[in-house]
Structure formats: structure tokens, C-alpha cells
């Protein structure tokens, strides 16, 4: 004795497929969303109290990263410059620019500028800038083309899979120690070989493996161990 119409058979069969499809689609959407700039803010410029342009200061004026980020080579924190660093120049140039009023105000009152942090790792991640710099990880390997950023944005998702991409194969990215702050560094190729310690390198992997030896990198097992970053 049937109480439903014959067509419900077809609906029942279709629903089996539909559940599988919807569940699969939902998982896909959630994972895509989790990797999207909507969640990670990847390449999304954030408003700042003063629209400081790295493009102008780095590419235009040729100021070295370390002029402002002074502690990047020997501390876990790269360092945000005090207002005094800004005033080194801006007490002489653009002294009346309205755009720079918050900087002058900070200098007068002694209250720091409150920047919006862009490259922000979660608190449960231990991160040290100096070890990365000293082992030959270039600034722009992680931070991207800062010299072409009118407003600062994070170049990468900062997801753990992104960290592990390099920690699992550091030879993909390492560069000579003196090239770390070079914002226009090109990985070696047949057209642009790189000579180091009397050797000629024409591809990144060979160079990377050489630098792992030269810079005494710990093994991949060591740097992918949980407690390396989650201490």
C-alpha cells in the first residue's frame, strides 16, 4: 500500500546523489573560502593612520629595509621604527604636508603612531626574523614586492601550509647571504648564472642545496617538527 506518488522513487534516487554532491561542494567551498583573501587578507591593503608608501621610500628613494627595521638581523622582531626615524628626514622635507600631520603630532606629544599590523602571525606560533635572514631567506621571499607596494599588504596567506612549503624544501628559496635585502634579486638561471665562492650556479635547486650546507641549516625533519614553531 503506497502513500506516495511513483515519482518519489526518482526523487529518492536523486537525493542520494544530491547529498554526496552537496556535501562535496560544501567542503570545497569552505576550504576555498578558508584560503581566500576574504579570510587571510592576502594582498589586501589595510588602511593606516598615515598612508606610508614602501614603494616611494624603497624603490623611489632607495632606503634599505634595515634603516627602519633595525633589529631584523638579530632579533625575532624586525622592529617598527620610532617616530624619530621618520623625523630624521621629515623635519627637513615636507614639513608642512597635511598628510604627515599625525607623524608630527606623534613627535610633539610622544604618543606612538598606531599602525595596523599587516603581517600578523597567531600568538601560538614562534617566529624569529633573525634566523631566517641569517640562513638566507630574502625579505621578499615572504613579504613579496614591498618596493612596489604603495600601501602595505601581506603577500602570502600566512597559512601553515604556506610556512611548510618552504620548511619542507628550503632549497627552493634560499639565496646568498648578501642578496637577502635585494628586492630585485632573481633566482639563478642559464641566462643569469650566479657566481658564489668561485662556483657558477645556473639553477636554484643546486644553489639551494649548496647554501643548506654553507649556512648550516638544520634538517627538514628538524624544521618541520611541531615544536620548532609551536613551542
Amino acid at each position: 500500500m503506497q502513500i506516495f506518488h511513483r515519482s518519489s522513487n526518482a526523487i529518492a534516487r536523486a537525493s542520494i546523489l544530491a547529498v554526496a554532491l552537496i556535501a562535496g561542494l560544501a567542503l570545497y567551498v569552505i576550504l576555498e573560502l578558508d584560503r581566500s583573501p576574504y579570510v587571510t587578507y592576502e594582498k589586501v591593503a589595510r588602511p593606516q593612520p598615515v598612508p606610508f608608501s614602501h614603494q616611494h621610500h624603497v624603490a623611489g628613494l632607495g632606503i634599505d629595509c634595515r634603516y627602519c627595521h633595525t633589529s631584523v638581523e638579530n632579533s625575532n622582531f624586525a622592529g617598527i621604527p620610532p617616530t624619530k626615524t621618520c623625523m630624521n628626514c621629515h623635519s627637513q622635507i615636507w614639513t608642512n604636508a597635511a598628510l604627515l600631520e599625525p607623524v608630527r603630532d606623534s613627535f610633539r606629544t610622544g604618543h606612538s603612531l598606531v599602525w595596523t599590523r599587516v603581517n600578523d602571525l597567531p600568538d601560538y606560533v614562534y617566529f624569529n626574523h633573525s634566523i631566517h635572514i641569517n640562513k638566507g631567506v630574502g625579505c621578499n621571499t615572504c613579504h613579496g614586492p614591498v618596493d612596489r607596494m604603495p600601501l602595505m599588504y601581506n603577500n602570502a596567506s600566512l597559512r601553515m601550509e604556506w610556512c611548510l612549503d618552504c620548511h619542507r624544501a628550503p632549497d627552493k628559496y634560499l639565496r646568498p647571504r648578501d642578496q637577502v635585502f635585494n628586492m630585485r634579486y632573481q633566482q639563478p638561471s642559464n641566462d643569469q648564472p650566479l657566481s658564489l665562492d668561485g662556483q657558477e650556479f645556473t639553477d636554484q635547486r643546486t644553489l639551494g642545496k649548496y647554501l643548506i650546507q654553507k649556512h648550516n641549516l638544520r634538517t627538514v625533519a628538524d624544521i618541520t617538527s611541531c615544536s620548532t614553531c609551536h613551542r
Partner: protein
Amino acid sequence: MTQLLEEVETGRKRAPVIEPGHSFSTVTAKISDVVLKRPLSIGWLAGVMFCFGFVNLLLLAVGYLFIKGTGIWGITIPIGWGFAIVNFVWWIGIGHAGTLISAILMLLRQTWRNSINRFAEAMTLFAVACAGLFPLIHTGRPWVAYWMFPYPNTMGVWPQFRSPLIWDVFAVSTYATTSLLFWFVGLIPDLATLRDRATNIWVKRAYGALAMGWRGSARHWSRYETAYLLLAGLATPLVLSVHTVVSFDFAVGIVPGWHTTIFPPYFVAGAIYSGFAMVLMLAIPIRSIYGLKDFITERHLENSAKVMLATGLIVGYGYAMEAFMGWYGGNRYDAFLLWNRLHGPYATWYYSLLICNIFIPQVLWIRKFRTQPVLLFLVSTVVLVGMWLERFIIVVVSLHRDFLNSSWGMYYPTKWDWFTYTGTLGLFLFCMFFFMRILPSISIFEMRTLLPESKVKAE
């Protein structure tokens, strides 16, 4: 023993699987009327409300846990696994009887299983639900418990496949899925019966939707039997594998008292032991309250009691071997563990365990204890308590005296531990109460196959 021998020698007639005098229609009416015709009784309502109180206690305990964290429990270092793991193992073990009854006994053509498999499977499902809750809330951050499943996550790592705790996730989720499917497939012909017998149009529609258009045609039955047999084949290895994997949670660790190869078989036997105790504790009241003594006869009680006796002896052998290896193995830590069980601060618990699990159940050699519902009910209670104590001994006693005596400690469960535990007991019974009144608690169509009517043409 003499009782058993006497039975064999004299060939005394055992109680039948189904009392004589029943026909297709009386079987169908008796079982489906519990669901469709029986009025709401005060007793049922009172039972539901009583259990609902404990469900709320569980919600309270879990809610507070989510706010404060696992620090509200008695767990400390070195006893990082307290009630949560004790109760997890206890509940998941209870579930095993349902699968054994429905799958293994079916493959072995033990037709007496037909009258108890349905509610035993329901018991399995509810027990697995209670069990699954514990490791989940024990993780500390249950809102990210999905990290235990392998999916292409943004962390770029897979779960630690070498960890028995991940094996657990797979074992238990497979078990829950297979048990649910098996139970539901078994229900389909009965749901169609209820659909046909219901008078209220909404009740009809609800059962009709669940019956998935079952007409009972020869083609339906032929496919149905194949599907059911396949599912039984799938579920059979689970009876052995699930508790084996649970035992690996312990046996893979190097803690004295855990690191033994006897764990898998001894855990599986213990699981079936406690599971049959729970089946009996449910069957005995159900058969008398709902007038189902014709279908759940003395034969069922006696057979279940025999399974309990046999598995109980395997468990006893396990204890004996643990003690023997503690002495014979010559490992000082194992020897200390044995000494500590017998003389340490938890010695009372260990002796209670031996009394509940090994000594008292020996009365089941006597026929009266296997067939007298009240006595059997009491023995089953004792076994369930004993099996809970066993898990307590394994978890707590092994951990509280580890290798370094500076880190020795004691375990004191807090009220929140007890709230959570009694809360799951309430949840389990709450589900059973509803199951009894909205689904046929005995498989109608399988009972019909036991009747003489169904054998006329075959013989």
C-alpha cells in the same frame, strides 16, 4: 558444571525461541501495537522525564566544560586520562553485543537472535553515541575536533596516522556508520508494516517516508536479503576490530599495565561480556513491561547468560595472564604494577573488580541464575560495574605510578566527572525510551520466519 552436564545427559527440553500458539498476525499485532496502539503511560513519561533530567545534567556539565576547559575534571599529570577514557571504553564495549548479535549470530544462523537483535542494535547505536562524546570532549578544544579527519586543510599536514588515537577515529566512525546502516536496513520491512497499520495520516507518512517505498515484492526481498547479508559480512569484522583498535590506545604505549599483546583479545571479550550484560539489563524489564515474554523467552536469557559466562572466563584468563606475566616476565616495572594493584592505594578497587567480574558471575554455572530474570538482572548489573572498574584500573592504576616516582600522583574524580558520566547514562536510557515507543523493538518480519506457518512449504 554439573547442571550443564545434567542438561546434556537428560536432554531436558530447553525453552522455545518463541512461545507456541502464535501466528503471523498475532506476532505482527503484538509488536506493532506497542508502537501504534499502546496509550501513553505514566510510567513511561516518568521514566523519560527522569532521564531527561540527566540529559540536562550532561548538557550542563559539557557546557561548563566548554567554558572552563578540562581543568574542571579530576585529571592531572600523571593521570591525564580519567573518567573520559574510562567511560569511552566502557560505552563502546557495551555496543559490541549489538553487533555480535545482529551480524555474527546471523551469519551463524542462530535464529534465537531474531527477537533481540533490533533493540540490541539500537543499544549499540546509543552506546556508540555516548562513547563518541567522551574522546571528543576530552580533546580540550572540541570545536576543532574535525582536525582528526584527513582533509586537504590549510595547515598542510595530515593527522598523525601512526597514532592509535587516529585509528580510533576511523574505527569508531566506521562502526557508528555501519551500525546505523545495518539497523536502518533491518527496519525497512517493519517500517512498511507500521505504515500499513497506522491510522493517523501523518504517522503513516512518517513511516512511509522511512520505509522507502517497500512493497514486499519477491524482487524486493531478494535484493533485501543480499544487502542485509553483505552488511552482516561488513559488520562482522568490526566486532573484533573496533575494540582491538581501542585496546591499541593502551597497548601501543609503553606504560606498564598497558604494553601487552593480550590486550586486543581480552578487550574484545570484555566488550562482549559487558554488552551482553547490558542487553540483559534492557531485555528483562522490556519483556515484562511490554508483554513480550512470548518472544523474549527464557531461552534468550539463558543463551545470553552463557555468552556472558564464556566471555567472562576469557576476561578472567586475561587477568590471570597479566598477573602471571608480571611475575614471569621479570620486568621490575611490570612486577611493581602487579604489586601495586594488590597492595597500592587502589587495591580495594582491584579486589572489587575481581569480585564483580570473576567471582560473582560464576553463579551463572547454575541454571537458576541463567533463567530467573531478577537474579540474572542482578548478575548483569554486577558485571557492568565490574567492567567499568576494569577500565578504571587499566587507566588510572597504570598511570598513577609511572617510571619516575617524583611524578607519582592520585586521581580524584570531581563532581563534573560524575555529572558527565551519569549524564550519558541518562542520555542512553532517554534514547532507549523513545526507541521503544516509536520503532518496533523486535524485528517483526524476522520473528515471522520463526513461526511454523512460514515452514509449511519448505518441509
